[in-house]
């Protein structure tokens, strides 16, 4: 209990010191943009308080508020700020929107940005309403609080998010083995953008006064597109610094304040919008990947069912038909004199042979049996022999660089079917004299290529339909099938290799 209290006091003290020092510095910088010290409090210190209170746990609110009150009192004694109780009252009043904002259940980053925007707006309105009621210039107060609030709260959110997004681990000497992650490219981009916007703010002549403000939007959009809301807010921050540096010595503080406000608003809204798109995009990508996995699994399942059915059919029906044929032979021999029996039994034998052939054909379509007994390469060689290409005067060349372990069962079957279909086409339509089959592993893809030097595919063929079915399978496996008939026929299949998929998951 005591130690928790001590730790609370110590953390509050540390936080108060950092808060007070930052508050004072911001106040002093703000003095350059407004006429009186009390208005300077409404500018950046107001935003700093809002930003910190919005992010910090509720129990650290009292020390921070107390700290601010002491600062105000002290500054009143030093430089004279008769309206400081009004600011204090305002800071208590703005606790209301802060409390409401904390109660919002926000899941996404972009919603958080909008909540931030709403909170700042309401808080600024409350503070300036108070100002107005006290007989002061409420509009100026509104402008100052909105500007300071939006600038500082978004910065606080950015830093807070960066610092709390991970649990920090202490560093040790083991670090020496870890290469420095310079992220030079990013750093150079940030710096370039910053220098560019600073240069534009400082360097452009007055005759280009309409052009300058647009330059502020460009880095915001670029960074938001690249890094999401964090990028947008970071660009806004860089813009703020550039604007302050560029115009702090100019005559029109109102113009500067308004442009600060406008560009903060741009940053926040653009950040929120782009963040929403990014989140949707990510969700979509995830969903797509999920869908692909599902179809892949579907294909695998289908393949395994086909395999099972084919085996059952082969074993059962094969045996049964052999038994039927044997029985038919026995019947014929039992009644050798009866011609009718002989006829019937011959018919039974023919019919059962017919069934056998039909089943064999069916089995071939269900599942290439070769793949159960040998590797894909041997199966493709068998296919070449079976189609008697050499006899038809077609020179074949086979370069096989794929190991079966790198392929899933569905992939093996698909590749085999591609070869089968392609070679069939060659035999039937191409009128080719040479065919080349190339299969190789390429980084994380599997590539299969069938080339012939024939006359290409006929316009409308039933075989084209077969390739269409195969194309669907290939796409379901996350690959592509390309058919080109420029010189002969070239059939290219590209599949993601299975090893990568697994290591990726």
């Amino acid at each position: 209990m005591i130690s928790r209290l001590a730790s609370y006091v110590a953390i509050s003290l540390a936080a108060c010191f950092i808060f007070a020092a930052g508050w004072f510095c911001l106040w002093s910088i703000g003095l350059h943009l407004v006429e009186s010290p009390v208005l300077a409090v409404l500018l950046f210190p107001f935003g700093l308080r809002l930003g910190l209170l919005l992010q910090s746990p509720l129990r650290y609110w009292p020390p921070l508020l107390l700290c601010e009150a002491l600062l105000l009192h002290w500054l009143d004694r030093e430089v004279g700020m008769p309206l400081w109780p009004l600011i204090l009252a305002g800071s208590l009043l703005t606790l209301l929107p802060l409390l409401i904002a904390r109660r919002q259940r926000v899941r996404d980053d972009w919603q958080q940005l909008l909540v931030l925007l709403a909170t700042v707006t309401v808080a600024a309105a409350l503070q300036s309403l108070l100002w107005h009621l006290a007989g002061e210039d409420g509009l100026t107060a509104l402008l100052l609080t909105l500007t300071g609030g939006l600038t500082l709260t978004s910065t606080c959110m950015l830093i807070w998010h960066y610092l709390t997004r991970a649990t920090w681990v202490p560093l040790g000497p083991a670090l020496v083995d870890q290469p420095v992650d310079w992220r030079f490219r990013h750093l150079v981009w940030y710096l370039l953008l910053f220098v560019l916007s600073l240069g534009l703010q400082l360097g452009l002549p007055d005759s280009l006064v309409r052009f300058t403000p647009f330059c502020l939007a460009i880095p915001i959009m670029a960074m938001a597109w690249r890094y999401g809301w964090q990028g947008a807010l970071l660009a806004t921050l860089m813009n703020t610094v550039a604007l302050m540096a560029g115009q702090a010595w100019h005559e029109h503080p109102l113009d500067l304040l308004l442009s600060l406000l406008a560009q903060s608003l741009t940053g926040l809204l653009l950040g929120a919008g782009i963040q929403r798109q990014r989140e949707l995009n990510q969700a979509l990508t995830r969903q797509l990947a999920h869908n692909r996995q599902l179809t892949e699994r579907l294909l695998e399942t289908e393949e395994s069912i086909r395999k099972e059915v084919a085996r059952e059919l082969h074993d059962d029906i094969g045996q049964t038909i052999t038994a039927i044929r044997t029985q038919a032979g026995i019947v014929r021999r039992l009644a050798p004199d009866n011609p009718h029996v002989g006829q019937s039994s011959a018919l039974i034998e023919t019919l059962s042979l017919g069934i056998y052939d039909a089943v064999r054909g069916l089995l071939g379509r269900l599942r290439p049996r070769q793949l159960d007994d040998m590797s894909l390469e041997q199966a493709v060689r068998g296919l070449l022999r079976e189609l008697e290409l050499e006899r038809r005067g077609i020179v074949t060349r086979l370069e096989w660089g794929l190991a079966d372990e790198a392929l899933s069962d569905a992939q093996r079957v698909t590749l085999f079917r591609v070869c089968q279909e392609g070679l069939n086409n060659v035999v039937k339509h191409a009128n080719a004299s040479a065919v080349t089959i190339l299969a190789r592993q390429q980084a994380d893809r599997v590539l299969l290529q069938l080339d012939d030097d024939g006359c290409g595919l006929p316009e409308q063929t039933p075989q084209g339909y077969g390739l269409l079915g195969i194309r669907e399978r290939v796409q379901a496996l996350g690959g592509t099938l390309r058919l080109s008939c420029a010189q002969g026929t070239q059939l290219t299949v590209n599949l993601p290799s299975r090893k990568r998929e697994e290591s990726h998951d």
Partner: protein
Amino acid sequence: MLNFMKSRPAAPLVRDQAEIDASYRHWRLHILLTMYLGYAVFYFTRKSFNFAMPDMLASGILDKADIGMMWTLFYLTYGCSKFVSGIISDRANPRYFMGLGLMATGVINILFGLSSALWMFVALWIANAFFQGWGWPPCSKLLTSWYSRTERGFWWSAWNTAHNVGGALIPLIVSTIALQHGWRYGMIVPGLIAILAGLLLCWRLRDTPSTLGLPTVGQWRQDALEMAQQTQDVGLDPRQILRKYVLGNPYIWLLACCYVLVYVVRTAINDWGNLYMTEQRGFNLMSANSAISMFEVGGFIGALVAGWGSDKLFNGNRGPMNLIFAMGILLSVGSLWLMPFFSYVMQAACFFTIGFFVFGPQMLIGMAAAECSHKDCAGAATGFVGLFAYMGAALSGYPLAKVMEIWHWNGFFVVISVAAGVSALLLLPFLKAQAPRPLAVETG
């Protein structure tokens, strides 16, 4: 002859747990207090000249160019000495190393007070810079061997405030003495104090826990992180350790570069601050100096907040706190630059905030350097970054004076603001190293 300076081999281990606890508790406190006193007194003999200088200027012994040269030479020698003695001190007994160094600076200060020739001043001041370098590395060796990883932020920051106490007391002491008895006594008295304090150090300081027969602090406190650091690369010889963990360690180089910039700001404010106050804001020297001492007061608090906060809020990771404070430096320099109220209190408050933010990184970077290197080269690592720091300090001497000649005070502030901003940027890769990598992809 110098054998007593060497670190003793480990004494036979004490078995009794109660005795271990008792001597750990006793020595942790006493070593800290002794180091604290010793380091504060190192500041006496280091800064004595700065505050005796106005009187020397007035009596026409030196002119401004001589002083600028002596500062630059001092900072360069001090930086080099810090690195060299850092390497030596990893194998030396801090007790005599620090004590004798302090006594030597005392003797040199006394001799300085007795001499009158310029070449003598320069020679003595370079010698002083050399022995000044004997102060920090033994401290970092003791701080890394008596206090473990998870609590070190607090202990180190407590010790670090010796910088500020020494820096705040010395103007008072020397100015008073010099005002009443002349600058010679202003040098001799700090010298005498240093000799006495050096004797005290030789008497009260101890070497690492193992030489007293105690288990290492990681074992004593059951600090897993500390033990991991102890067991890293045990078999390497000192030369290899130095090459691998200090000279070839990119993170140490990164910290060193960052330290250069932090020290540009620190030294610029410290050395030029009173000129800014008198020349630009029209204060007299006494109130200008007292406003500068607010810099040290701010530093006192800032170091404590940064060190303790990094232990407590960021699990002993120095990066995030460093980043917060580096951004604070940028803000606070801007506030001093733009502050439209020229009252004493407002200006002093600006110096306070600058001190507050500067002394965070000033301490954290040194500490991070000691922690990111091998257990047996903590002194060399801190000495190495210290070498760079004083390169930065030297940069803010003559080069900054040139900048001011051409662009006046605006140029001065632009230079230190840019230094502060770039130092924050240099910390980013360090933060990346600490953050778990997969999470870091999104934020850029």
